[in-house]
């Protein structure tokens, strides 16, 4: 990418090519993020509606079971795929990878642009399902056949077809983006940027992208095959069954085959969301604790190890699916093994702040909040991964609480932390600190109050995906009060997000000027000539990387951070 004559590097001039049909990774990243946040707001509203029904059953006439299940399904799918995956890879990945490895742009800018437009198309198709006859699918975000495509499930006609089509389009978008991220990391690093000098953010996103490229095909396969079953009447996943009293034409298919394919995607998907969060949080903690990340190599190996292991644990989602029970031994073992590298990451984060010089800026608060919520989510994962403990807990609220902690709250805290951290680079202005702190405390304490007690509903045995819990003898009356409390907190947390949205817009115009490097950080993105970086990122010369990204408080230097481009000598050795 050194070559200045490269034709892709012409700076666009018109409004359309600069902000709409842009091939600049920074603009694409913002496009991705804006779409993801907008669609995330839809999913947040849906979760509020769900909680209204659960907390105050029967008080809201417009929420009938069909609507409720549609809210559940769309909330889950949007949050996991269209918000978290998109914002980590398409948003953070796009913005940070070229800047952090010292490239002028992604290696295939045109494909990168196509990626965001395909993503938008996927979102439009998905949103369209709210307006078709029958509404969006209500099959649960796992879309298990046979019920996903049969009457008795809301949106079994148009809704499910649009959902599957939208997923297929999203996968094409993610693949086009993924090609870029991987190839850019592999081929476009600047001089001196060895793999082990890359910030952990890049490592996390890089590994997550590899997972996405290898795992999304499984979702594509299952979506296409289910579309065949739905539209063409094939029997990939459909056994001979009755539906609404009628015998269907299908014969011999296997619903469990779908589950295998789905979770072969679904489990790596957890890490597609988690690994970028791991990477980003490492950088936030190191920067704001003014200390090098502890055990960098271990962190990289753990990211790689988790990535590899994530492909051999998928059936821990299927312990009670009716698959061969002997698989339980293998998958319980691999699942608990994956806890070791994950635990090491947690240790290294907390050891990083040990002996540090901790500045509790808003990004740091989110990062520390993440370590706490992720610890809970990870530890409850040990219950569910251990096959025999999973038997009473699976399909209960324990699972709901667990995955919301580990891949809902935790990654979203990192998304917020990351936005507070890089917003100054993206727009040249700081986000408002007071609003940021309020946002953090509301979100962190609120989500704790939602999900910690929710585990206990699961231990009690309350099954998930229930529209109402009336007249079940084993559920005490007090559980209803707990549900009401959870709902109130959920709505509170949702409202707190309005402050964040307001802050994003307000600070764009009124935020404090940030300067080039407000956090005094070392990695390359803070060393650009302009803030926000201009087209092509760097001036005439690409930066040269002389050190790793964690030279904070290096002994012998006066300044407490050495940028990766820094070439000076320790004071004692100065000529």
């Amino acid at each position: 990418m050194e070559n200045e004559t490269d034709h892709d590097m012409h700076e666009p001039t018109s409004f359309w090519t600069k902000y709409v049909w842009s091939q600049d990774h920074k603009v694409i990243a913002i496009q991705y993020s804006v779409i993801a946040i907008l669609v995330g707001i839809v999913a947040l509203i849906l979760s509020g509606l769900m909680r209204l029904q659960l907390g105050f059953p029967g008080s809201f006439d417009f929420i009938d079971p069909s609507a409720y299940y549609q809210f559940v399904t769309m909330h889950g799918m949007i949050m996991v795929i269209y918000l978290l995956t998109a914002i980590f890879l398409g948003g953070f990945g796009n913005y940070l990878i070229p800047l952090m490895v010292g490239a002028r742009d992604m290696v295939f800018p045109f494909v990168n642009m196509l990626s965001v437009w395909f993503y938008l198309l996927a979102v439009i198709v998905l949103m369209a399902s709210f307006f078709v006859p029958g509404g969006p699918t209500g099959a649960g975000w796992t879309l298990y056949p046979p019920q996903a495509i049969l009457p008795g499930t809301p949106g079994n006609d148009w809704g499910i077809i649009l959902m599957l089509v939208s997923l297929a389009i999203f996968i094409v978008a993610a693949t086009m983006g993924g090609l870029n991220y991987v190839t850019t990391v592999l081929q476009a690093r600047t001089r001196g940027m060895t793999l082990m000098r890359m910030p952990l953010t890049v490592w996390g996103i890089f590994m997550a992208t590899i997972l996405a490229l290898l795992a999304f095909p499984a979702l594509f396969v299952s979506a296409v095959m289910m579309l065949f079953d739905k539209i063409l009447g094939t029997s990939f996943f459909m056994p001979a069954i009755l539906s609404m009293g009628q015998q269907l034409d299908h014969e011999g298919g296997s619903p469990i085959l779908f589950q295998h394919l789905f979770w072969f995607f679904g489990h790596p998907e957890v890490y597609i969301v988690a690994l970028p969060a791991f990477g980003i949080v490492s950088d936030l903690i190191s920067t704001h604790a003014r200390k090098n990340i502890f055990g960098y190599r271990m962190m990289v190996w753990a990211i790689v190890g988790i990535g590899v292991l994530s492909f051999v644990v998928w059936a821990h989602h299927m312990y009670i699916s009716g698959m061969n029970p002997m698989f339980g031994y293998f998958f319980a073992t691999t699942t608990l093994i994956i806890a070791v590298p994950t635990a090491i990451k947690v240790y290294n984060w907390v050891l990083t702040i040990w002996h540090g010089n901790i500045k509790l800026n808003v990004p740091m608060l989110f990062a520390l909040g993440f370590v706490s919520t992720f610890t809970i989510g990870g530890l409850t994962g040990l219950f569910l991964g251990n096959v025999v403990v999973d038997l009473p807990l699976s399909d209960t609220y324990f699972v709901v609480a667990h995955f919301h902690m580990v891949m809902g709250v935790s990654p979203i805290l990192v998304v917020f932390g990351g936005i507070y951290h890089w917003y100054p680079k993206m727009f040249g202005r700081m986000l408002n600190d007071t609003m940021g702190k309020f946002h953090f405390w509301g979100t962190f304490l609120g989500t704790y109050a939602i999900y910690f007690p929710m585990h206990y509903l699961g231990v009690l045995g309350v099954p998930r995906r229930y529209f109402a819990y009336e007249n079940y003898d084993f559920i005490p009356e007090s559980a209803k009060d707990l549900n009401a409390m959870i709902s109130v907190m959920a709505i509170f947390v949702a409202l707190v997000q309005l402050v964040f949205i307001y802050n994003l817009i307000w600070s764009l115009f009124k935020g404090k000027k940030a300067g080039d490097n407000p956090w005094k950080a070392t990695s390359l993105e803070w060393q650009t000539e302009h803030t926000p970086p201009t087209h092509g990122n760097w001036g005439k010369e690409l930066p040269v990387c002389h050190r790793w990204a964690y030279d904070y408080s290096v002994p012998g230097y006066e300044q407490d951070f050495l940028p990766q481009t820094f070439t000076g000598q320790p004071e004692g050795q100065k000529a």
Partner: protein
Amino acid sequence: MNILTALSEKPWEENPNPQMQKAVRERVRISGLRVLLTVVSVLFFLFIVAFLMRSQYPDWQPLAEQASHPLYDKTQLWLNSIYLILASVGMQIARMSSRGTKRQLTKGALIVAGVFSSAFVAGQLLFWQQLTAQGFTVDANPALSFFYLFTGLHALHVAIGLITWLVALRITLFSDPTAHAEKINHYIELCAMYWHFLLGLWVLLFALLISKPETYNAIVEFCGLGGGV
């Protein structure tokens, strides 16, 4: 550099700055194509796994064992395979000759490759038509559903390849051969890689689809795919 050595580097220690990676456009594109082909391989690998797992159910019917089976008469498929082989050969000739000076040969071979690829796609569609005319529709039996799925997706990949072929053809035919020799070679190189990959994929799929049920059983047993569902 060995990946393990690279990953055990201690980045906080003084390291001499390694040579800059020469990010040549060509290498970037080839690298990108390799990643893409890996993704496509994974996609088809998973389809094949699904196929093999599905083949273990009692309602499975092989495709090419008896005269009454849809793929018993494979004439059209063999013909299509020959088209695709010729397309691949054409690409290879274009690739090898583009490095030399035989410009006409390159152009001719490239055109031949595209024409035969189109013939392949058309031939597959023709075969679909023949099958449906005989009543072998996509929902007739699971193996046949997979047949339509595999051939359809594969043909789609060939068709997408033909779009890049058009780009390569435009450059080869209409740009100044001396000024853009690098670029021409590069595009042809990429096309050739893609075509060989698709040929290999087709051979694999074709062999899989017409194999005996015993073969499936043996593979499934060997890979431990059975019993899971």
